[in-house]
């Protein structure tokens, strides 16, 4: 892990800790989603700083998962075990299954929300009709189900064990 990665990882861990804290307190979904999205984006940035050229946009978490799904053959077994899968093929299939949730999580940032549901600001911009704090987010409902809960466990593990695969 280089120094740039370490700094992004440090911030990702802190964002994730805030997410866990807010979840324990039963805070509104918009705030939970905001911190989960930030933690995952920064986790991805930490990972891609290995190249010294991380993505500039908010969209990074999906690419991070895809990159893990394309792990070189020599490292596949250890990568799968790191995330509690017996076989890499199972890990790859799991990524395929959860990626739609990851896309939805990326799209709750105002920059990618196309003036629709986002975790921070009332929308639409020209004539606000919804506030995030009182909105029921489909992505939060997805995260509450089986695949979504697994994705949150994955994020936790990826944040905690980042140094092993950075």
């Amino acid at each position, binding site marked *: 892990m280089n120094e740039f990665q370490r700094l992004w990882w440090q911030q990702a861990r802190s964002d994730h800790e805030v997410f866990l804290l807010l979840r324990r307190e039963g805070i509104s979904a918009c705030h939970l989603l905001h911190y989960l999205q930030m933690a995952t984006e920064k986790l991805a940035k930490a990972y891609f700083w290995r*190249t010294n050229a991380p993505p500039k946009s908010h969209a990074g978490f999906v690419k991070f998962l895809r990159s893990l*799904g*394309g792990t070189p053959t020599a490292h596949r077994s250890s990568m799968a075990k790191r995330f509690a899968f017996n076989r890499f093929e199972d890990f790859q299939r799991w*990524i*395929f299954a959860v*990626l739609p949730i990851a896309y939805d999580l990326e799209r709750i940032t105002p920059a990618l929300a196309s003036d629709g549901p986002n975790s921070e600001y009332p929308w639409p911009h020209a004539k606000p009709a919804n506030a995030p704090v009182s909105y029921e987010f489909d992505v939060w409902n997805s995260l509450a189900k089986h695949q979504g809960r697994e994705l949150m466990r994955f994020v936790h593990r990826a944040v905690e064990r980042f140094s092993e695969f950075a």
Partner: protein
Amino acid sequence: MATTQFDRASMARWYAEQHLKTDPGIVSVYYLPANSDVREIRFVEVNRLIGDRTDDALEPVDFGVDFGEEGAHKLFVVDVSPAQWERIQAGNLRLPDSWSLTGALELP
């Protein structure tokens, strides 16, 4: 020699297969070898799960693969929506600098 350890076309095919296996949003993968370094693989991946953007700044992402090893190489991916791909083909949306559709190949 390290240069004999890396078969770019085979590697590109392998990455395309892996990406299609991993991401349900990817509709097609195009390999763009023109103008790239011999140890660089460039993909345009058409993806139905990304939204259309109005700013249209296409950003190649370095996937950070296999660097510092004998077969060292780089994999750059530009994700585009189906509508953006149509605009690229029609010449209405620019690829990143030095990227070209000349010799582009759909994989696998």
